[in-house]
């Protein structure tokens, strides 16, 4: 699908979608959304990027292999639950750090880290699938 029209606009769409995906990820705890949906959106963004501009450029863009990103997400997700070990609590017991930052309440928590892990897993894995399938087309 190497048409000028698509190729010109796709990077911007991708950027916009990635942005939106992070938005969906971060608000998931309070509104519909979350890591999984966010990850799917981001993966779709990569897919569009890949279709429009070629897989090679996507791969260069994300630098890490998507499966490594995915693996890191899993690692992060599993590790997020381990923190409670040091507090004598069961696995995955949530830890919250809520502080005020220039009048905006910022909440850091292990469920959020976990959700980010989910996001990375999905981006990586689904992205990897999409890219691998695309690549196959060309080679």
């Amino acid at each position, binding site marked *: 699908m190497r048409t000028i029209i698509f190729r010109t606009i796709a990077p911007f769409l991708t950027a916009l979608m990635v942005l939106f995906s992070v938005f969906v990820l971060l608000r998931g705890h309070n509104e519909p959304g979350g890591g999984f949906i966010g990850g799917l959106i981001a993966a779709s963004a990569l897919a569009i990027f890949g279709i429009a501009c070629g897989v090679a450029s996507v791969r260069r863009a994300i630098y890490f292999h998507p*499966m490594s990103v*995915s*693996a890191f997400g899993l690692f992060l997700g*599993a590790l997020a639950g381990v923190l409670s070990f040091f507090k*004598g609590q*069961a696995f995955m017991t*949530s830890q919250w750090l809520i502080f005020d930052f220039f009048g905006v309440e910022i909440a850091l928590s292990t469920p959020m880290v976990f959700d980010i892990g989910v996001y990375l897993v999905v981006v990586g894995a689904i992205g990897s699938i999409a890219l691998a399938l695309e690549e196959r087309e060309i080679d």
Partner: protein
Amino acid sequence: MAGSSVSVDLTQAMATAPVAAGDWLVVAPALITMLGGSLCLMLRKNTDLQPKVGIGFLGLLVLANLALLIRVLDHGVITMVMGSWLPPFGIAFTVDTLGAMLSLIGSVVAFCAGVFGAATIDSTGRRYGFYPFLLLLMTGVCGAFLTGDIFNLYVWFEVLLISSYGLLVLGNDRIQLDGAVKYGVLNLVGTNLFLIGTGMLYGIFGTLNMADLAQKVAALEDPASGTLATVAALYFLAFAMKAAAFPVNFWLPASYHTPNVVVSAVFAGLLTKVGVYALIRVFVLILPASRGYLSDVISLVAVATLLTGAFGALAQTEIRRLLGYLVIAGIGSMLAGIAVGSTLAISGAIFYAVHSIIVMTALYMAAGVMEMMGGSYDLRKLGGLYQKSAAFAAVFLVLAFAVSGLPPFSGFWPKVMLVDAAFSDGRSWLGAAILVSGFLTTLAMGRIWIFAFWRGGPEGTPDGQTAPVTAGTALSEAQLSGSAVWLPLGILTALVIYFGLQPEWMLELSTQGASGLVEPLGYLRSVFGVQG
């Protein structure tokens, strides 16, 4: 935002008592494998380091499982509720003797496979995930053995299923793809049936915790009728598929011989047993009345499975296919135990599961070595292995007798227990089927032995003579002497002999495991004691 808190009685929601560090062993198997698996995946391209990390984590897994089993034996059933949310609200990992024991044996097998794989899996295989798949397969396996939540069990089933897909297609041979299609689709159907059953169970009781379910089922007036009967039937079908019971065993013979032999070894050891485990867990702990209701059906299935497996094995020329049928035959024995349902029967089934895990894995590994030494998996093309390596022949013979249920190896004891239980329950034909299946297995294994080991060479070798193996890939004993294949094979064979000669430990454990299911008070207390 929700930062400022409202006054909440935390004890109504969370387990507030500090969790002993040792109780973290409950989650350690799943955690270790997950971290190890993701680490190996991140190291994907470093194919030299990956096996070391993978085997290291698998070793760690064995140790953790051992420690867990010891702790369960010391402290009784241990429960950890994830996120500290009280059961039945949070997901509880409830580890009893059965779970801990199977988890340990499973991890030993996985460790052995990890080591064996270092010899048989090439760098492409490593690059495309042998160790991550293996480790995460163990996440699924251990998770399934340890979880106390029925939906969570489904999740672990899926984890192990998708890992098995990965292992199955690793290498991408054409035959593998064929096998994987059948394996993939049929198993997916099975898992979906399980999920359907679970959804219905939730619809009936509104809960997912196994202990909670067990209590609620027990409180019913007629706990084997109505919609629950349908759920039980669905569960039975689903787990029977997972366990490769007749007549829903097709996927196993269609696929087990297609992947790298170490993968077959892991599959043969673990996958079907998880199905058996689920049958035991669900039908003895949660739905005992349905088990009673279905026991004739289960018996029938058991007999059919025993015979299908044994006859199937006899019909094969290819060793791995033959072994696949023996896996099925073994499942029949375990089903027989479930059908009878007494403590003796269940403990026999548990012991048999442990035996089968070890011996089937070892046999597939042995088949791999046979292929390395003899250049083929085909009984017609094999020969002369007895002359080539007496030690390996001895190992094979031990495994052959063990899988046939002959003393003094591990297969004998559970067979006796199961036959005893069947006879005591008045199901003599069930016991007879076990014995007949064992007899046919002896014949099948005897034929392998005669053709591959005793015969001087491939089919057609003149009587009384040896013939060199024609296949170019065959390695000599010396070439294999430093190989990583011997350690795992040795460990597993040693276990087969040990459990045969010293069965007491296994007997005690399996009896304890079985009585913990038949009389689940300890299990329930462990789950609901978390509040206090």
